[in-house]
C-alpha cells in the first residue's frame, strides 16, 4: 500500500502527512448542515430500529459486577419486553474480566461480545501486557476487540510504533476467539486527545493501514468523545479507503451520543458521506448505554402516538 520496500517511521510519516488536510471550519459547517436534516415518520421508524441494532451496549465502570453485566445482556437481547419486534443490539461491550459472564449470558444468540483491551482506556502499558490482555479476552470468548492506540506515541510522531502495535494486536485477533473465527478489531483513536481534524484523518488512515476492521472514535472516558464532525471525517476515511483498496472498514462512534435526535444525525452522516453500504450493524456502531432507552421511548411513541416515560423502559 505504501509502496516502500521497508516500512520506516519516515516513510509512514511522509505518507500520512501527504493526505489532504481537513479544514476545520468547513468540516464543522458540513456536519452541522447534515445535522439539520429532518427525519420523520416512516424514515424515523426505520432509523430508530437501525440505530438500536447498531448499538454496542456498554458498561465500563470500576463498579461493574457479574449482576450488572447479566442484566445488561438481558437488555441487549430483549430491549423492550413489551414489544418483541424490537431488534436486539449488535454487541455487549465490557472489560476483559467480565467477558465470560457476558458470553454465558448471551450464548445461543447472535449478539457479539466486545472486550476493551490493551490497557484500556489509557493504553499506558507494555506491549507484552497489551498482547496478554487481548489474548485473555479472546480466550474468554470475546469475538470483538476494542483496542486503544498509544496517543502519546502518535502525538510525538512515532507512527511506526502505533502501526506495529495495531498490527500485533491484529495478529492476535486473527488467531481467533474461543470459537475459532477471527475476532474483529476495533481501533480506538481517542479523538478527544488527538484534537485536530488533521490528526483524526491521519490516525484513521494509520489504523486502516495497520489492519483495523473498525475505527472507533473514543473510549468514552475523555471529553469530548464522539462528535458529528469527527465521525464524518472517519467516515470519509473509510469511504476513501474502500475506493483505494476495495476493502470496507467499519466506523464506531462511541461516547456522548445519548438521544434519538443525535443518533438520527449520525445516521444521516453515514448515509450521505459513506453511503448505503455502511448503514448496517456490520459497518456502523454506536458505543452507548443511555442512548438505547431514548431510542426505545421514541419507538414506543411512534407506535402508540404518545410518549410514555422513563418508567416504561427498563433501566438495564
Amino acid at each position, binding site marked *: 500500500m505504501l509502496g516502500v520496500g521497508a516500512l520506516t517511521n519516515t516513510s509512514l510519516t511522509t505518507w500520512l502527512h501527504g493526505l*489532504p*488536510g*481537513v*479544514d476545520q*471550519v*468547513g*468540516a464543522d*459547517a*458540513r456536519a452541522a448542515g447534515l445535522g*439539520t*436534516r*429532518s*427525519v*420523520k*415518520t*416512516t*424514515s*424515523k421508524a*426505520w*432509523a430508530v430500529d*437501525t440505530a438500536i441494532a447498531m448499538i454496542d451496549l456498554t458498561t465500563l465502570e470500576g463498579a461493574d459486577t457479574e449482576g450488572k453485566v447479566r442484566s445488561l445482556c438481558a437488555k441487549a437481547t430483549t430491549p423492550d419486553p413489551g414489544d418483541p419486534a424490537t431488534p436486539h443490539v449488535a454487541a455487549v461491550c465490557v472489560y476483559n474480566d467480565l467477558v465470560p459472564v457476558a458470553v454465558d449470558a448471551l450464548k445461543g444468540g447472535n449478539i457479539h461480545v466486545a472486550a476493551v483491551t490493551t490497557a484500556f482506556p489509557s493504553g499506558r502499558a507494555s506491549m507484552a501486557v497489551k498482547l496478554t490482555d487481548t489474548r485473555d479476552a479472546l480466550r474468554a470468548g470475546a469475538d470483538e476487540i476494542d483496542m486503544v492506540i498509544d496517543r502519546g506515541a502518535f502525538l510525538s510522531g512515532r507512527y511506526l510504533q502505533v502501526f506495529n502495535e495495531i498490527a500485533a494486536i491484529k495478529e492476535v485477533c486473527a488467531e481467533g476467539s474461543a470459537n475459532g473465527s477471527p475476532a474483529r478489531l476495533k481501533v480506538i483513536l481517542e479523538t478527544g486527545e488527538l484534537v485536530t481534524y488533521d490528526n483524526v484523518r491521519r490516525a484513521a488512515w494509520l489504523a486502516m493501514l495497520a489492519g483495523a476492521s473498525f475505527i472507533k472514535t473514543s473510549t468514552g472516558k475523555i471529553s469530548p468523545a464522539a462528535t458529528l464532525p469527527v465521525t464524518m471525517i472517519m467516515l*470519509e476515511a473509510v469511504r476513501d479507503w474502500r475506493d483505494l483498496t476495495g476493502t470496507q472498514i467499519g466506523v464506531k462512534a462511541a461516547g456522548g451520543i445519548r438521544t434519538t435526535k443525535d443518533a438520527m444525525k449520525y*445516521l*444521516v452522516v453515514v*448515509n*450521505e458521506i459513506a453511503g*448505503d453500504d455502511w*448503514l448496517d450493524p456490520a459497518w456502523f456502531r454506536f458505543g452507548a448505554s443511555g442512548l438505547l432507552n431514548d431510542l426505545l421511548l421514541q419507538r414506543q411513541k411512534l407506535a402508540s402516538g404518545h410518549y410514555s416515560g422513563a418508567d416504561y423502559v427498563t433501566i438495564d
Partner: protein
Amino acid sequence: MAKFEYAPAPESRAVVNIRPSYGLFIGGEFVQSTDGSTFKTISPSSEEVLAEVTEAGEADVNRAVLAARKAFDGPWGRLSGAERGKYLFRIARLLQERAREFAVLESLDNGKPIKESRDVDIPLAAAHFFYHAGWADKLEHAGLSAGTGQPPRPLGVVGQVIPWNFPLLMLSWKIAPALATGNTVVLKPAETTPLTALLFAEVCQQADLPAGVVNIVTGAGETGRRLVEHPRVDKVAFTGSTEVGKAIARSIAGTRKRATLELGGKAANIVFDDAAIDQAVEGIVNGIFFNQGHVCCAGSRLLVQENVAQDVIMRLKRRLQTLRVGDPLDKNTDVGAINSAAQLARIRELTEVAESEGATRWSAPCVLPDRGFWFAPTVFTGVSPAHRIAQEEVFGPVLSVLTFRTPAEAVAKANNTPYGLSAGIWTEKGSRILWMADHLRAGVVWANTFNRFDPTSPFGGYKESGYGREGGRHGLEAYVTTGATR
C-alpha cells in the same frame, strides 16, 4: 431503492396569509393604482398562481416618489440618528419574530429551498437591519467626511430596483443603509418575486415607520425604468443584470443622480492541489448550487489544478448525487426550482450551446417534478475559456470546469472575464491565499469558503460587475453626501 429514504418533511404553508390581490404601498398605506395594470405572481415550483399584483404606471411611480419626497422634507428628515435607529431596530426584531412567515413566503414565491430562506435569507435580512440600526447615530464617526470636514447628510429620495434571487435580503441590503443614513426610499421588487417586499410593507406599518419613508411599487422593467428616470429621485441603487445596469448608467448620465450598481458575475472558484479536498468539494457545491446558482457572485467557473482535477471531479460528482432537488418547502430539499420559465429557457439555451461547442455535460441523476421550472445540477467538463459557458453568466445550477497548472495561470484565467464580482481560493498555504487575493480582480475574495455574507463586510464588483459597495462602513458612503449643500 436507498435504505434510508427521508420521508417528506414539508414546512407548513399555514403560517402565511397571502391576499388574493395587492395594491401599491405608497405613503404608508396600500393603495390602488391610478394608471397601472395587474399581473400574476406564481410559485415557480408548481406554477400555481399565488396572487395578483399591481403593475405600477407612470402616475403611480410619481405618487410614490412624491410621498418619499414629502417624508424626507417632513418628519423623517428631522429625526435624529438615534430615533431613526430605533425604527431600524424595531424592523429588525419584527423580521425575526415573523421569520417563519417570511421564509415560507420567500420559498413559495421564489422557489428556493426553505432551509435557505430559513437559515440564510431571513436571518441575514434581519442582521442587515440590526447592523445599520447601530450606524444611524454614529455616522459622524464613520470616517465618511474625509476631505470636507462636513458631517454626512442624506441624499434625499432613493430609487431602488432589486432582483429576484434574494428578494427580501436584497431589499434589506438596499433599505437598511438608506434609512440609517436618513434617506427615504421607493423600491421596486422584481416582477417574479414581489410578495416578501409587500409583506415587508406590513412590517413597516407594524413598526409605525412614518408614512412615505418606505414605498414599494411593484411591476416589471418599465416600472423600474420610470422609477430610475424620475427627475425627483436623487440616487439610484440597482442590483441585477449587467445589461440593465448599463441602460441605467446611460439613462442617468448627465444628471445629478448618483448610482450604485451591483451587476453580474462569472466567478472563479480556484482549487489548488494542496486544498483540504473534502471541504473544497463542499465549497464548489455551495458556490454554484446554493440558491440554484441564482447568485450574482456564484462560483460558476471551477478552476482546478490539473494534477488533482480527476479526483476533484470524481468527488464532486459523487457529492452531487446526494443533492436533493424538489419541493422548496420540504426541509430536506437542497436545490429548489428555477425562478421563472424565462430563466429556465436561458439556462437551457446556454447549456445546449456548451454541448454544441464541445464541452462534456454531466447532470446529477434526479427525478424532477412534472410541474414547475426545474433544472438538474449540471457540470461541464472539458470547458475552454473560449466557450460561451465559460464567459457568460448562466445564473443557474451549471458549473464549468477548467484546469490550470500554476498560480499565475490560475490568476490569468480567473481574471479573463468582463466581470469581477467574486472569487474563491482553496489552498492550505496562507501565503498563496494572500498573493492570489492581491492579483485577483474581484470585489470579494473568499479563502477556503464561499458565498459567506455578513452585513459588516462590503460587497461589490470590479469592471462590469458594477460600482459602489454595499454593506459595512463602505456601504454607507453611497447614501450620504459630505459636500456643500445642494
